[in-house]
Structure formats: structure tokens, C-alpha cells
């Protein structure tokens, strides 16, 4: 009774051949799934309230295309790929360089957002309370920006650790997850940009 | 087929002559409610059959296959893993039933929602407030509260069309014998219609939770013959009775109180819009959206402190002195 029917060799091969996905991967994928749903709710709200503001300012009066900032953010996705590649091949110097570039590009994006908001708030007098455009604009762009901030914090932690001589090569998997998250933040920007600055701008 | 059985089960009080306090959804007296009942009976019949069959099967299984003394404990029953035919059967049959139900729903939905107003219909704008109803007759320029007078539509040609909206939060119009619910939503106008077949008073409730006194946001629809309706309308359209010289002192007292900030009495200085229009207060059967029957005693109680019959309502306790109260009540009672 205490012995199963399995033949030893049989079970051994089964054990040896047993391959399951990496749990970190699954975790991060589903984190991204939840986050995507969260973002889509804000995107939908933006679209529903498009052109529904009762008072100005309206998008066409105040919004300017953040072209440079967008280019920076999207290229940071490229930079982090290079960094990753360098790390995989154990070229630490190159890794640090590309990692720093990623951080700088992301930081520039954030700074550009801050400048944009400053202008909107102090020159155009558009706040989150002004009208539906303000409400949906600040919440959607702000939600994205908060994700950029979180990403930057993690990127910076990794950078500082590397500078301090922490053997980052041993954490390749975690670096990879971070870069996925960063790609996700960039991809969301593509959607936010399309919705806010392209679909939302005319009229 | 279900009617007798259900009406025994759902026994309600016998209504007095004028008032249907029945809110039984299976005793409709208007087309939308009747169509809803038809759909309901069909669905009830189908689901009842499903219930009897399935519950019967479960019962049979439980009784038949219970473990009995003397069963061979060591011998496991035959291990059956499934059966494609049987499983297909209990997938396909429900699919068929569901399609029938979808068809029924679609037809009744269209019949109620897409009906177009007949030419003579009365139009009403019903505005929900926390916790009373503002009733407007745009074609007649009349504003009143809490009671909707409509003509009877025994010929099916005098339906009443209601536009529904709200001044604050969401409420819902529900007079079970006339029609199912339609919400009153701020910033949006909804439509519904009723065509009461018999004269009488039909009671309804606000059916969407709207704050403290949601429970006491009752509504009356008073259906009357065209003549009665027209008579009522012309009486209501008159401004308030100011001619009675005996009451001028009372009227002055009332006018000096802050009541006028919230209540409208047409033809006087009272032009508030926050509370119900009081121009013809005495023509209404209840006070405070149905919490009290409208009589002297209750009116007094209400004006003295509305927070007692309707705690939390948005009319504050006015703290009138005895003489003021007497004057106000006698004035209000002149508002026939």
C-alpha cells in the first residue's frame, strides 16, 4: 500500500523531463495584464468625456505635441535592450552606460511632463477641477507618469547597486523583468499619446 | 395559468374604493406592466419546469444512491468518467430554452421601449429630488409635486409620456401596476410611458437608493377621466387663493418666514424652488412624499418639525412659535 504503481525509471524520467514556466515570468505577465486593464479604464474615460467639457480650456487651445519627450521615452526602451544585451554578455561597462542612458531619457520625459503641467496650470489655468478635459487629462497622463516614476526608482536602485559594485550579473532575471515593465510603460505611452494628442486634439 | 395560484400566494389587502395600495406586479392595469407580466409568466413557467425536473433528478439521486447498511464498503461503485451523449443532451436542451427566452425578452423589450406616443398623449417632466418628486406639465405650464394626475386611457389613446430626470442623485420611477422601473438620472433624460386602464390611485416607490429618506419617497399616480383631469388641471393652473381677506394676516406671517426661500406659492412672494410647490397643497392626499396623510393634525406636525415624521429630510425644523404655527397652518389650509 505504501508503494505506488509507478515504476522507478518511469517516474525518474518524468521528473527529469518536467519543465514548468518560470514563476517570475508568469508573475510579471499577469501584473502587466492587471495594469493594462487599469489603464484601459482611464483611457475609456478619456474617450467618453472627449468634447464633453462644459467650459474651456479645450485640448486644442492648450495642448502641444510632446514630440521630443515621446521620442526620448520610446528610445529609452531601445537603450534598456542594449543594456540588457550588454549584461547578458557580461560587459559591465557598456551595461552601466546604457542603463544610465535609459534613466536619463526617462527622467527627461518626466521633466517634460512637469514643464507641460506647469504651463497648463499656471498659464492656461487648467486644473483637474476645471472641466472634464482637465479631469481626464491629468488623471490619465498622471497615472502614466506615476508609472514612469516607479520605473525610474527601480532603474535607479539597480544603477546605484551596480555602481556600488553589487554583482548585478547574478540578477539577470530581475533586470529582465524590470526591462519588461519599462517596455510596458513605454507601450502605454504610445496609447496615451494617440488618445490624448492625436484623437483628442482636433476640434 | 399562473394567475390563480399566484394571487392566492401573493394575497394582498383588499383596496378601498379609491386607492390601489396594491403594488403587486402580477396585477397590472397598464400596457407596459401587462407586457411585463406576460413575459414574467412565460419565464416563470419555463423555469418552474426546469426546477421541477432538475430538483426531481437530484432528489431521486440522493434517495436512490444513498449508502445503506449492508452495502459492501470495500467495493467501490463503478467508476464512470463521463458520457458524451448525455453531456451533449444537457448542453443542447438549455441552449434551445435560452434562445426561446432571448426571443421573448427581445420582443417585449421592443414593444415597451420602442412604442411611439399617440398624438393626444399628455407629457410630463418628472424631476427627482432628495426625497420628493417634482411634477411638471410643460404643455400646461404647471408645476406640482408628489402626485401625478393623468387621464385614464381605457381606449389606449391617452397614454402619458414621462420624461425623467433628477436634480441631485439617482432615483427611480416605479409604479408596479403601471410600469416597471426607469431611473431618474441627473444630467440625462429618460423616457417611460403609462396608460392606466382604470381610474384610481396607484402607489409607487422610489426604487433607487438615494440617501437617508429613500424609504419615504413614495409616489402616487392618480388616473381620472378626461373631464376630471381637465377640471383638475384648470384648478391647478390658477394662482393661489389670495382673495380671502380673513387670511391676510396669516399670509403676511407666512411671507415673513423663510419658508418662501424654499417653496413656491404662485401669485405670492414665495418663489423658492428647493422644496415642493405649495400652491395647491390642500389638493394633495399626502405630505412629505407619502409619509403622512394630508390632514390638519399631520400638517401641523409636519410644519412644526418635519424631522420627526421624516428624519433627515431636507426641510429643517422651522422652530415656529405657537401663534406663528397657527397662522401658517391656517394659511396653508387655504391653499385648496
Amino acid at each position: 500500500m505504501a508503494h505506488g504503481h509507478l515504476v522507478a525509471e518511469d517516474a525518474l524520467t518524468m521528473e527529469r523531463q518536467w519543465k514548468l514556466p518560470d514563476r517570475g515570468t508568469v508573475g510579471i505577465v499577469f501584473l502587466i495584464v492587471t495594469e493594462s486593464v487599469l489603464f484601459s479604464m482611464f483611457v475609456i474615460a478619456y474617450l467618453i468625456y472627449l468634447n464633453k467639457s462644459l467650459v474651456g480650456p479645450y485640448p486644442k487651445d492648450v495642448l502641444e505635441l510632446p514630440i521630443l519627450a515621446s521620442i526620448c521615452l520610446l528610445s529609452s526602451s531601445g537603450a534598456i535592450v542594449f543594456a540588457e544585451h550588454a549584461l547578458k554578455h557580461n560587459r559591465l561597462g557598456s551595461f552601466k552606460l546604457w542603463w544610465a542612458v535609459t534613466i536619463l531619457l526617462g527622467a527627461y520625459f518626466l521633466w517634460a511632463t512637469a514643464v507641460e503641467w506647469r504651463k497648463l496650470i499656471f498659464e492656461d489655468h487648467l486644473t483637474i477641477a476645471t472641466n472634464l478635459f482637465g479631469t481626464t487629462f491629468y488623471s490619465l497622463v498622471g497615472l502614466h507618469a506615476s508609472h514612469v516614476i516607479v520605473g525610474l526608482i527601480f532603474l535607479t536602485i539597480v544603477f546605484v547597486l551596480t555602481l556600488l559594485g553589487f554583482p548585478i550579473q547574478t540578477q539577470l532575471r530581475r533586470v529582465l523583468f524590470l526591462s519588461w515593465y519599462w517596455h510596458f510603460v513605454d507601450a502605454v505611452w504610445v496609447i496615451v499619446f494617440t488618445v490624448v494628442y492625436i484623437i483628442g486634439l482636433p476640434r | 395559468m399562473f394567475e390563480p395560484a399566484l394571487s392566492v400566494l401573493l394575497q394582498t389587502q383588499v383596496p378601498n374604493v379609491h386607492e390601489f395600495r396594491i403594488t403587486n406586479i402580477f396585477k397590472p392595469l397598464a400596457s407596459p406592466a401587462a407586457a411585463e407580466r406576460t413575459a414574467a409568466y412565460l419565464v416563470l413557467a419555463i423555469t418552474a419546469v426546469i426546477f421541477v425536473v432538475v430538483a426531481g433528478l437530484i432528489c431521486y439521486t440522493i434517495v436512490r444512491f444513498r449508502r445503506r447498511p449492508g452495502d459492501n464498503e470495500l467495493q467501490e461503485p463503478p467508476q464512470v468518467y463521463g458520457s458524451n451523449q448525455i453531456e451533449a443532451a444537457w448542453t443542447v436542451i438549455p441552449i434551445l430554452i435560452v434562445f426561446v427566452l432571448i426571443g421573448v425578452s427581445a420582443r417585449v423589450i421592443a414593444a415597451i421601449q420602442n412604442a411611439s406616443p399617440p398624438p393626444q398623449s399628455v407629457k410630463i417632466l418628472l424631476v427627482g429630488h432628495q426625497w420628493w418628486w417634482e411634477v411638471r406639465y410643460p404643455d400646461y405650464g404647471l408645476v406640482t409635486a408628489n402626485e401625478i394626475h393623468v387621464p385614464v386611457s381605457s381606449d389606449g389613446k391617452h397614454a402619458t409620456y414621462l420624461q425623467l430626470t433628477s436634480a441631485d442623485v439617482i432615483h427611480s420611477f416605479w409604479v408596479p401596476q403601471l410600469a416597471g422601473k426607469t431611473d431618474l438620472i441627473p444630467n440625462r433624460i429618460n423616457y417611460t410611458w403609462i396608460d392606466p386602464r382604470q381610474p384610481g390611485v396607484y402607489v409607487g416607490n422610489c426604487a433607487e437608493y438615494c440617501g437617508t429618506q429613500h424609504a419615504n419617497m413614495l409616489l402616487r399616480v392618480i388616473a381620472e377621466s378626461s373631464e376630471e383631469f381637465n377640471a383638475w388641471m384648470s384648478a391647478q393652473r390658477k394662482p393661489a387663493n389670495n382673495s380671502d381677506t380673513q387670511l391676510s394676516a396669516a399670509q403676511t406671517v407666512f411671507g415673513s418666514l423663510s419658508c418662501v426661500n424654499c417653496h413656491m406659492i404662485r401669485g405670492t412672494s414665495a418663489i423658492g424652488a428647493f422644496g415642493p410647490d405649495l400652491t395647491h397643497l390642500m389638493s394633495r392626499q399626502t405630505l412629505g412624499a407619502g409619509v403622512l396623510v394630508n390632514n390638519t393634525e399631520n400638517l401641523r406636525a409636519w410644519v412644526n418639525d418635519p424631522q420627526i415624521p421624516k428624519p433627515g429630510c431636507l426641510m429643517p425644523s422651522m422652530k415656529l412659535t405657537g401663534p406663528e404655527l397657527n397662522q401658517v397652518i391656517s394659511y396653508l389650509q387655504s391653499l385648496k
Partner: protein
Amino acid sequence: MAAIDYPLQRPKAEPGEFSFSETLYKWVATVDHKRLGLMYVASALIFLIVAGIMATVMRVQLMFPNGHVVGPDTFNRLFTMHGTSMVFLVGMPMVAGFANYLVPLMIGARDMAFPRLNSFGFWIFLLGGLLLYYSYLGGGGLSGDGSAPDVGWFAYAPLTERGFSRGHSSDYWALGVLVSGFGSIASAINVIATTFCMRCPGMTLKRMPMFVWVMLIDSWLIVVALPPLSAAQVMLLLDRYLGANFFNTQNGGSAVLWQHYFWIFGHPEVYILIFPAFAILSEVIPIFSRKPLFGRPAMVAAVVAIGFISLGVWAHHMFAVGMTSWSNTFFAASSMLVGIPTGIKIFNWTATMYGGRLRFTTALLFCCGFLFQFLLAGLTGIMLAVAPFDWQLHDSYFVVAHFHFTLVGGLVFGLFAGMYYWFPKAIGKMLDETLGKWHFWLFCIGFNLTFIPLHFAGMLGMPRRIYTYAPGRGWELWNFVATIGVFFQIAGILFFIYNVLRSTLRGQPATDDPWDGWTLEWATSSPPPEYNFEKLPVVRSSRPLWDLKHPQDPDWKWE
């Protein structure tokens, strides 16, 4: 050969005496999935009693017309806190608790994929719950009701906006639920990662126990359905604190948007809540029928189908908001479609019992109660899905009766079945069967006595969420009977509490495999050691212990 076999010989859980503070520390600091699971279930039970007492007060208030037990404000807070607690602080932690405790054991794993995330999930859930209840103390102070939320469990805007909900009661609602929602998402991601990545050798998805399958789909639903609620709550908080206009109708905001967001979450949520019961039934019924689950692939397909269809039916809660006739028809149709896979489940459970040898333990009794009651609940659900019928029934006591039949008659019955079934495994003692039968019969009678009459009250036009009603509408009898039923329910639950306490302290010790089970949790000791399995098991079918116990007729021969 023995080395790679099922480890039927395991050491007992670590012995030794611990001081109170050591024990406390061990529980608070634990990352063990079993302890976290038990903590989830225990806190859910406590919230069940608290919210049940609130329900009792409501029922006493409504027992007679013109009731004067509580005032309108108190009553409104009662049903809001009752509903919110039952859904977010009883139902959700039960999902997490059962999944946490059982999934790793059933798939032959030593722990969850992310043990620390797991403990984070529990504590943040508890924080959210306590924050919600702090509202009774905060704001208005200890006297009276404080400022507990009074906007209903779905908190329709604009009633929750600054202008209509002053003070902080709605903030407590939004924040408390938002925070505990993060915990649910964390634990759901964890369950998904665990089932994908931690299965023992041989346990393909096809062989995974039904329980694990259902919990997997459940977690998937949590992951995709909770964010809309979180988003809506963030929007509401922005409205309330920063003056944003999402739901501010004065500035053009939409009151209906909140309803859409809430129910895009809210409808999947009700299936999230019922799935644990489905999961439990799918384990308990086969064991006490001594037959494998009938039509396993169809059962899996059915949960998957429910999991997907339920994402597209939300507006059946909104038939009265004035949607177009096309939308109404669409949502009526999609809602009824859910009945088909649900029917498959009911039929297959019945077929599992058919031809078996039913052993009516308390656990199986609760399953049978479930079958009848959930059948009725589902059929009243179909009535509600017929939009024209729903125009009459919406927001009436009929709806209250419908969802208590699903949630109490379904979910709570299922949970009790699960507790009677796995208690020996978790605690190492048997629950007393006689007390269990008392519990079952009292609770079953009480439950039906309470909620069957409420269907009739609803059909007679009684709206829900009213703190009082005038006599003469024909509602008196039904309300009276309903309230009487609650006392039977209380008696039943008191039997349960007594049973749990007594059995824990001096119950009959449980063997490792008291029910002659077939899934892996019965292959380790009761209670299992911290690392669950000394040797990871290797399986070849969905009933590994059946294979072990019936070497002549193992399941894997049929695969």
C-alpha cells in the same frame, strides 16, 4: 523505488512548547501558505459574524411595519457595511484562504510561488478591512454610528460625491475597499503563478485537480475584473479630494459611467465569489459518492466559459438606467447564456452522485443544500435577466432574495462543506458529525425560512434598502417569517462555532486521510508539516491517491 514514491511516511509537524509571544510572532511573521490560508479563513469568519449581526439588526427592524429599532441613518449604514463586508471581507478572503491553503497541497508543491507577496496580500487585505471598520470610530467619534459609509455596497455616484456625501464616510468605503483589493490582486497573481510554475512532476494541466482549475480561472477573473473597480475608486477619490469631475454631474460628469465601471467589476465579482464553492463541490461530491467527477473536461470548459462570458453581461444590473433596446436585448441574452455552462456544472455534479454510494457526512449535506438552492438561485437569476421582468423586479426584495440564494445558499453552503471536509487536514482534529448535522439542518431551515419569503415581498413591490415601511401593502407576513428564519440561522452558526472550538481543543484526532481521499493533500500528514511534502510526489492521473490505492485499476490507464 520507495525514494520516488508518494511520501506516505512523513514526520509530524514540529513539536515543542512555545510561549505566547513566540507563537504570536510565528503567526504574524509567517510566509507559510497554510498559516496565511488559515488566517484568511479565520478573519473572514469573524467578519461573517460581524456582518451577520448587522443583518440580524436589519431583519429585526423590518420584522414589523413602522419598525423603530434603528433610525434611517443607522439602517443605511448597516446594509452598506453588511453588503460591503460580506463581499469584500468575507467572500474575497475566503477565495484567497481556500486557494492559499489547498492549491500548493493539491499540486504537490512546497509553497506558493511568492510567499512574501502572499503575506503582503493578507496584511493589506486586513488593513483595508480594519480601515473600513475604523469608520465606525473615526469621523463622528465613538458615539453613535461614527461616519460609516451609507451609500450601499455599489456606492452609486453621484450620491458619493462631495455634495451629497459630506464628511469622510465615502472615503472610508473607497479607500478600505481599494486597499483590500490590492491584496486580492496580489493573492490572485500568486495563485496563477503557483499553478503554472509549481506543479509536481507529472501534474499536467489536464491532471490538475478540479479545485485547482476553478481557482485558477477565479484568479484570472480577479486579475482582469478588479482593476475597473480600483480605477473607479481612484476616480471617485480624485473627485472627492481634488475636485475632479468624473462623476460630478453638475460639471457634465456622468452618473452612469460609475455604474458601468462598478458592474464591469461587479458582475464578474459574483462569479469570483461563487467559484470557490464550485471548486469545493467538485472535490467533496466525488469523494462522498465514491466516483470520479463526471465529465471532467466539460466541467473545466464550463468554468472557463463562465469566466469569459461573465465579463460581458455587466449591464444586466442596469436595465433601468435607460439603455437602448438593443443594449438591453444584448445584455439579457448574454446573461442567459451563462446559464448553459452553469447548468452543465449542476448536471455533472448530479451525475457524479448518480450511481455512487452517497455517504451523507455534513460536508455532503451542505453540498446537497447547495445544489437545490443554487438551482433556484440560478433560475431566479434567469428571471432577472429577462429585461422586461427585471424592470419590475430590479431593486426590489426579489433581487435581495436572488442574491442571498446565490451567496448564502450557494457560497456559504459551499464554504461550510469545504470547512467540514478540510478541517481534519488543517487542524488535525475531526469536526463532530452530530453537531455538524445540527448546524446543517438549523442553518438550512433558517436560510430558506428567511429568503424564500423575500421573493414574494419583492413581487409585491417591496423595494430594497428601505429602513421602514407602512402596513397594508401585503409585506408584513413575509417580513415577519424572514426575520424568524434569521434566528434559526444564528442557532446553526452557533453550533458551528461551538463545534470548531470544541473539536480544536479536544476533538478526536484526525488520521492523515480520514475520508479516503484521492488528491495529494491527503498524502501528507494532518496537519501538514511546514514544507508540505518531504519528497515531492510524482503523479500520472488526476486522482493520484486512487491510483495508489487501486493498483489493479488505476486512473491513468484510462487517460
